[in-house]
Each structure stands twice: as C-alpha cells, then as structure tokens.
C-alpha cells in the first residue's frame, strides 16, 4: 500500500522508507558514504569461493542477515572444473539485478504495478584479449546488451521510461559505462 496515494500498487518496495532515507541523507551527507566488501579465497585451479557479509554505511558497521557465498570458476572448455559461474558472468548478474531492482523501485514510486520483469543479458568478448594474442583487443566485454520483457499496468512509453530511469540511477550500470579507479595491493 502506497501511503501517499492510498492505492494498492504493490511491487514489494517500501517507497516511503526510501523517500525518508533520501531526505535524511540529504541532510546528513556523511551518512551516505558506504563501503561494500567481499572476500575471495582461492580453492583450486580457477575455482574460488567468495563471501559477502559485512559492509559499512549510515555511519557504522552493518551486516547482512546471513553470509552469502559464491563459487566462481571457468567452464570445462577452458579445462576448468566448472564449479561456478565465471567472474564475467557475475558482472552480468550484477548489472541485470541492479537494473531490475531499480525498475521495481521506480515502478512503485510511479504507481506502476509490475506483473513480470525478465531481463536477458549478453556480453560480447574476444578472447584474443585475455589470452594475449592481440594487444589491440581489450580484455573485457566490448559490448553488453540487456533486453527486457516487462508485463505491467502501464503504456509502452511509461515502461520504457522506467527502464531508462533505472539505468540513470544504477550503480552497476554507472561502473560499467564510466571508468572507476581500481587499486590492488599485496599486504
């Protein structure tokens, strides 16, 4: 139930809490500083196990309800054991889940009832880059495509506007479309 309009649009997003948080963080910009963390441990071969549990935000240490774990590996065609998704697939997962969560939030805010939202994500990569065959080829994706199928109580243009606004506000979309300084050290 949206308190502002009193209607029954429900995408499971608490918009009032988000609007409240936005207003609170506008007045206290230092509390808006977050640090997200993950740990990653090598298992064997290209197999790694990563966990996320704690993060920093709102001025203090925070914690997920539970510790989440992620196996990453490479498929057997790379002579690996395929114990999990490849790291580059996790990037696609990050992008799609960020955009899709954003769509639900914005839809709630705009009083649009969603019935189903399905994203298909594809990233193109030329392995000549990571294999060092051709130094003119980059390592990473040279293009990523996201395709949405959305069933909602809204016009085509309103649905397109949801998807566009979600890109505008997405952290992962921003990280992939604009450069980010990355610092790696050995302790």
């Amino acid at each position, binding site marked *: 139930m949206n308190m502002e309009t009193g209607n029954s649009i429900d995408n499971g997003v608490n918009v009032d809490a988000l609007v409240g948080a936005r207003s609170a963080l506008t007045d206290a910009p230092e509390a808006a500083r977050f640090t997200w963390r993950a740990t990653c441990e090598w298992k064997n071969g290209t197999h790694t196990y990563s966990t996320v549990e704690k993060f920093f935000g709102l001025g203090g240490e925070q914690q997920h309800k539970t510790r989440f774990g992620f196996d990453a590996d490479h498929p057997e065609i790379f002579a690996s054991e395929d114990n999990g998704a490849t790291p580059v697939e996790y990037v696609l997962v990050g992008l799609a889940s960020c955009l899709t969560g954003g769509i639900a939030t914005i839809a709630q805010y705009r009083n649009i009832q969603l019935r189903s939202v399905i994203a298909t994500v594809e990233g193109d990569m030329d392995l000549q880059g990571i294999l060092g065959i051709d130094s003119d080829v980059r390592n990473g994706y040279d*293009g990523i495509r996201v395709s949405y199928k959305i069933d909602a109580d809204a016009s085509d243009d309103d649905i*397109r506007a949801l998807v*566009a606004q979600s890109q505008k506000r997405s952290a992962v979309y921003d990280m992939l479309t604009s*450069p980010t300084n990355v610092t790696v050290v050995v302790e």
Partner: protein
Amino acid sequence: MQTITTVVIGAGHAGLAMSKYLGDRSIEHVVLERGEVANTWKTERWDSLRLLTPNWQSRLPGYAYEGDEPDGYRDMPETIALIERYADLVAAPVQTQTRVTCVEKNATGYRVSTTRGEWQCRSVVMASGAFNKASVPAFADQLPASIAMLTPTTYRNPGQLEQGGVLVVGAAATGLQLAREIHLSGRPVTLSIGEHTRVPRRYRGRDIQWWMDKTGRHDESFEQVDDIVRARKVPSFQLIGSAEHEIIDLNALRDIGIRQIGRFVGMQNGKGLFAGSLHNLCDLADLKMNRLLDAIDAWITDNGLDQAVEPPRRFPPTQVDPSPPLCIDFHTSDIRTVLWATGFRPDYSWLKVPVFDHKGQIRHNGGVIEDAPGLYVMGLPFLRRRKSTLLDGAGDDARELSGHLLSYLQG
C-alpha cells in the same frame, strides 16, 4: 560611505525589472553595474547568438514587444538595444563601471564595497546572473598542452580556432549551436553528449516557447514542482533562434556529419574517456520530449483547439551509433581544440555572508535568503518558476520579491 535603502547588483534585465518595481513601490535604491548596462550580452557571448525565446516573449514590466517580427529571435545587438532602452524607459538609477567587491552583513543591514566607494543599505538584491562563469570539469587540466581550450564565454566565432578537429563537450543549446557553426566552418566536430533536453523548435504550428507559456509550464512555481533540486538542474532546451525556425537536435547534427560520443568522464595518460551510456541518455531525452508533447496535445484537446492548430506529430527517435568510441587519444587524434560547453555558474565570490550550502550554492526560498533577512537573489534556474532565467521571467519574480522586500523594510 553612501547610505541607501536598497542596492541592486547587476543592470541586466533582472536588475532593471527589480529597479522598476522598487521605483513603483517608492523604495530608494541604486543599481550597481560592473560594466555597462547589459554587460554580459556585450562582452561574454558569441557573435551568432540569438535569444532562444521569440520576440513577443521578451516581456518586461511596463514593456511589451511592438515590432513587426513577433516570431523572430533577437540577435546580440538587438538584445543589448532592448535592455538599454528598458533601462531608459524605467529611468533606472544605474551606476555603471562599478564592480561589487564585497557584500558583508553588519548591525544596520549590509555594507556593499565596490571599486567606486562603499554603500550602507538595509537590503541587497543580487541580480548578477546565473551564467557568469563557464563550468569546466576538474580533469580539463590533464589535457595535453598542445590542445587549445575555450569556453562559451571566451569563444566568439570559428575564425578563432586552429584548423583541425574540434571536440565540443556538452549538448545543451550552447553545445549544439557551437558544434554546428564550427563544423560548418570546415573544422570537423566531435560532440560529447551528456544529459540533455530535446524539444522541437515549433510544434503544431507554434513556437515551443508559445506552448510552454500557454500551457502554464513556464509559470509553474517552485513550490508546485515535484523535485525542485532536480528541476533546477535540467539542462537548457536544445534550441536555436534562427529566421528559419529550424530544429537543432542530435539527428540534425548527425546529418551534417558531426560525430557523436558519450559523456566526457575523465582523462587517463593523455586519453579522454567517454561514458558508454549514450543510448540511454538519448532514450531519456526522447521519452521526456514525448511526455512534453503529450501534455501539450492534452492541453489542446482540453481547450477544444484541435481544429485550430496543426495535427499532432512525433519526431524520429535520436539515432545513435551502435558502439560510439569510448576513448580519444589527444596525442594522435586530429582534435586541436576542446570547447567546454558544460554549463555556467554564477559568481558570488564577493558575497561574504554565510548563506552557501555544502556545494557552494546559495540557500534560498524562491529568491528569499532566509539566513540573511533583507538579502535576495534573482535569475537563478527555477528560482521561483520555470521561466525564472528567461527575460520573460524577471518581471513576475521581481514583482513578488520586491513585495517581500517592502514587507521586510516595513517589518
């Protein structure tokens, strides 16, 4: 030291409109001007610039257009002449060649220091404009020294530029206009595009500004709009004032061969980095334009005017290359000049009253600076209404703010 009730800073259209109302309300005042009347228009704008609003819309308190080209757009000499005539018409007490160097609060009000003496006053209206300085991103100083850099306040015409390629950064009205004239001068332009606001010049037989006016959008108040912080940051409409009423948008620039790339986000080892989000920025602008046109269509229908005007239409979506370049190596590319059309900001370096927020912008409530009673600001984006930065917007803002100022004085 001279004593006066009110000091108005800036003798552009906003300061002069304020002067008109202060005079009507018998509030003794002086208008201090750093240079001449209409100084910014005279000294800090490019040669080909014309107003983006039609002549009929250049309304000021006590003045309406009487010429025979109501749908034309004033060039710079005509704009300057208008503002000079208006200063005479309202007999504004302007003191020219008087640059304000400091405004301080004291026990009896404000002390205004200038290059020609000091004033003590009870109230100050800052009408020095929102477009004093060109905003340039911090990474601009990482461009190689071999690249010439200009801003819209230093650019006059393409003849100033070396032969060779030009990167124009910014796709609001300024960026688009300059990209086009530079490209047509034979210097191939690459346009870096961030958030922008696409509108057609004319719609259903009328200027877009006519619809903005008629439908009440220009008059929408800062208290009505959903998110005023966001509304104050919307880039200017992609418009040009020309005799042909032509559309200037990304498709039109693409058609003449201007290369289009994403937002300029940083420099790394002499290379410019550009965001891969251009498609979405163009989608956002297309969708937003269509929402505006939908609203105009609805207003026309609600007012029973469908038969009186041209039928509705929609414009082709913005064409974007599938994979625009993400990087320009300034050491090897043909680009010789970078023109930063990345917006303007006001200059309040002389204001020594603590009224700034953490981003250095003046905290105000529709132009009323509540942290400093008696201090007012004009001409900022969406100050009191959507049209606040337009010539046409100064009158209503000046009327209301001068009313507030009078109550304050009578306090």
